């Protein structure tokens, strides 16, 4: 087993991801080009002349058979050509790539905030099980997780933006800003994301820690006479955080794909707000490209999560070779 097993596992997972993305692409295609019924009518509105609608549909290629349309769309998409925006009359790809870059920046800021603190919170809670500090972290984290981003987002805007006036309320930095200025602008939008993820990560870390602390190998380590900090650092943490790391990696997908609300709220030009705008403007090529891109991000994030887990876990990495 070992490396070869991981490779074959990886290939299987990639194949599976491709199937998933293929199915997603069909749904997106159906949603964008078939369900609206008459795309030309949807764009031009109910009062437009039927000839203009037909002409528009013809120029967009929408009067061709569905299979041809799908093939045309998907074969271009995989080559990086995401079509032409109905509204901007320009290629879609640059919009999507820009927006994706912005979303990744926001996700990264949120990540840098939430991962260390979430894990730390979980560890502290686990080392103080059922004491007040554990209750605060666990219950607080859980309550924050269930609050929707638009609620916490608005509270933060009011608190830090309007009332205390510490942070800019719109994530629109002046052109040419440096990295730190950008981060400064991104802290406020990252906070709602922090709240959503903190409870989740802390809870995973906490239960992983509790399980590892109760494990037989921890008893072995303690009864070897190792100092407490060595027991925790060397024997407990590594085993405790393995599942947490996987969860975190899986959340990357959410962080990039699930930002519609936050990005709209903070007027941030990410992929979430791009999709939102495209949906409102009936700009189907942008909508389709955006959703499919998020699908790809999700697939890749999950893949990385699985790979990370198998690389970190010697039982999977090395297999048994008896």
């Amino acid at each position, binding site marked *: 087993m070992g490396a070869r097993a991981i490779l074959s596992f990886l290939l299987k997972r990639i194949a599976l991801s491709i199937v998933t993305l293929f199915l997603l692409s069909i749904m997106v295609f159906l949603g964008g080009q078939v369900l609206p019924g008459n795309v030309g009518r949807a764009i031009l509105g109910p009062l437009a002349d039927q000839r203009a609608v037909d002409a528009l549909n013809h120029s967009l290629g929408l009067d061709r058979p569905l299979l041809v349309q799908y093939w045309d769309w998907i074969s271009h998409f995989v080559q990086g050509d995401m079509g032409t925006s109905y509204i901007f009359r320009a290629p879609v790809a640059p919009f999507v790539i820009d927006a994706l870059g912005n979303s990744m920046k926001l996700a990264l800021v949120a990540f840098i905030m939430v991962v260390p603190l979430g894990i730390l919170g979980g560890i502290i809670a686990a080392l103080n099980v059922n004491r007040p500090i554990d209750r605060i972290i666990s219950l607080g984290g859980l309550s924050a997780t269930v609050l929707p981003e638009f609620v916490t987002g608005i509270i933060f805007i009011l608190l830090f933006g309007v009332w205390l006036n510490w942070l800019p309320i719109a994530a629109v930095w002046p052109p040419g800003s440096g990295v730190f200025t950008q981060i400064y602008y991104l802290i406020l939008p990252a906070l709602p994301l922090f709240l959503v993820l903190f409870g989740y990560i802390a809870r995973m870390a906490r239960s992983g820690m509790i399980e590892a602390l109760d494990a*037989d190998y921890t008893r072995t380590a303690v009864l070897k006479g190792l100092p407490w900090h060595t027991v925790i650092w060397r024997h407990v943490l590594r*085993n405790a955080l393995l599942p947490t790391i996987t969860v975190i990696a899986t959340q990357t997908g959410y962080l990039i794909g699930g930002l519609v609300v936050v990005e709209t709220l903070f007027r941030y030009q990410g992929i979430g707000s791009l999709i939102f705008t495209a949906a409102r403007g009936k700009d189907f090529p942008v909508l389709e490209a955006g959703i499919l891109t998020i699908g790809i991000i999700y697939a890749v994030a999950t893949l990385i999560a699985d790979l990370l887990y198998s690389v970190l876990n010697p039982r999977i990495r090395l297999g048994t070779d008896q």
Partner: protein
Amino acid sequence: MTDLSTPNALELHHLSVAYRVGGRNRAVLRDLSLTIRPGEAYGLVGESGCGKSTVALSVVRYLPRNGVITAGEIALVGHNVMKLDNESLRRMRAESVSMVYQDPGKALNPSIRIGRQMTEIFELRGISDQAAVDQAISMLNRVRISDPIRVMQRYPHQLSGGMQQRVGIAMALASDPTMLILDEPTTGLDATVEAEVLDLIAKLRQELSASILFISHNLAVVSRMCDRVGVLYAGMLVEEGTTAEVFNNPRHPYTVALLRCLPRGGQRKDQIRLDTIPGFLPAPGATITGCPFADRCALADSRCHNELPPLHDLGGRLSRCHYHERAQDLPRTTPGSIAAAPAAHGREPVLRIKDLNKTYAAHGHALRAVNDVSLDLMPGQTLGLVGESGSGKTTFARLLLGLVPADSGGSMQLDGQPLASKLESRSADQVKAMQIVFQNPDSALNRAHSIRHIMGRALRTLAGLKGAAQQKRLIELVRSVRLTERHLSVKPRQLSGGLKQRVAIARAFAGDPRIVVCDEPTSALDVSVQAAILNLLADLQTKEHVSYIFISHDLAVVRYLSDHIAVLYLGRIMEIGPSERVFSGPHHPYTEALLSAVPKLDETEPSRVRLDGEIPSAVNPPSGCVFHTRCPRKIGAICEEQEPPLFDSEPEHRIRCHIPFEELARLQKKQEVIPA
């Protein structure tokens, strides 16, 4: 305690420990006093729930969060363990006391290499990197690990159970402790591996000075390893003495009863029923006024129920019984006599198997789990399957039940009718005719339903009974497994392991099966419960005329219940024949090794035949005779080159070996192997 020379390794003074459950302290250990002298090996025996492990965890102060020491003192090498501050406690664990655990796979850290887990112990004593590695290597050498450098680079999961336990022992001995605690160190290992590990511990004892506290439910293991033994019951010491005294001449009714539960000296189901112990161990925290064993003791009178017997000193040995001098007069609970032997059964086998094979694909290799197995099972008889783990016993059982399909080519016949290898292709009657009892009854019983519901459903689906007929049969069935009607309304989790296993057996018998496969049905049970289940299986067989395929790693249990034995190794039958011929020999060298691996209570000298190493992988079995790599009686190149046929040695007794039967008889003549 104020001994000025060498202090005792361990002294417990009136130790009481309780677990706090639901805001109440429930006593687990009650006023327990014992002493382990320097260099002594002390065994602590008793059934599950009697507090054995709690003793070990109290000594190293690692009780569960809700465990509290409510009274008494623990002195480890002269130091009061309970008065130590954190740093002294850590130093004591590092320097004076070590522990070897029951489940070595779990006791080792899964994500750290063996080498690192070893060296950290030496680093604790200020030994630097390279020196620590060297010491770790020499320690692993000492536990007879032949390639320590390679083993040190492995992770625990890459080692077999026996190797893991060797590493566990090496880690425990690395600090050169004064006190070594072994908590069920061989439970869960194959008999052959257990024998090796016990040999190792016995040898190391001579080399090292450590005193040993050996905790085990296995009386035979303790009798082999220990100088003195204490019998624990409901958290109290009920008897203590040298192992020879206690096991040969017990002076407490509980010890007497415990020893009678074990099938010994080749006892068989057609000769005698095993004795059992009625009732149950008092629950933790139960109020005990008189003798804790009084409710289950046939000798008990009103004095026993009202007055706790003191530990009587009988000259170097102790017994907590008012009537210790009469302990061995304890009447049997279960009559030894058996129902009249059933009339001779038909001579047509109920099950006939020819050339059965099963090949699995494992990572691109073919794994032959069952290899050309042919055998007959007669009605009303038991076929015992024995062999180490990996020998194919369980796969074979699954093939019979149709749970996995066999390779094409072989054939199975049930009552003369062809039996399809796939379950879906079998007739409803054929499916009903074969049932299974698992090691773990929980896996067979739906925890959400009451026993009545579980049994009712079994009767409906297996026997097609409804309404009043179903109720009538239900009561019959429940009584036949010695449960009462009051058990019907409860759910499985409210029953003890033994009672659950009775329900599982009753369920298997609901449809009047022809064959019941028993896969380690008593392995998870205490000996007193095991005895009751074995009696039950034997009685049901006499009454219902059912055949058993009986799988167990416990050879004495197999011998008790089996009419025929098949010894499996790497999926092949190495020996098959009537139970008594297989056990009394001459037998296949593998059978010989299996038998001599079992520790026996009646053993006078250690057995001579030992197997080295582990069962080879079935993916790449050895050439020639598959057993030649480990065979203590290998005769030469022929063993490596040719696979011996399964040869008729005497009527009905077949052995797969190149050594002629007469020669085997000569070689094995002096050894009369009787499992405990």
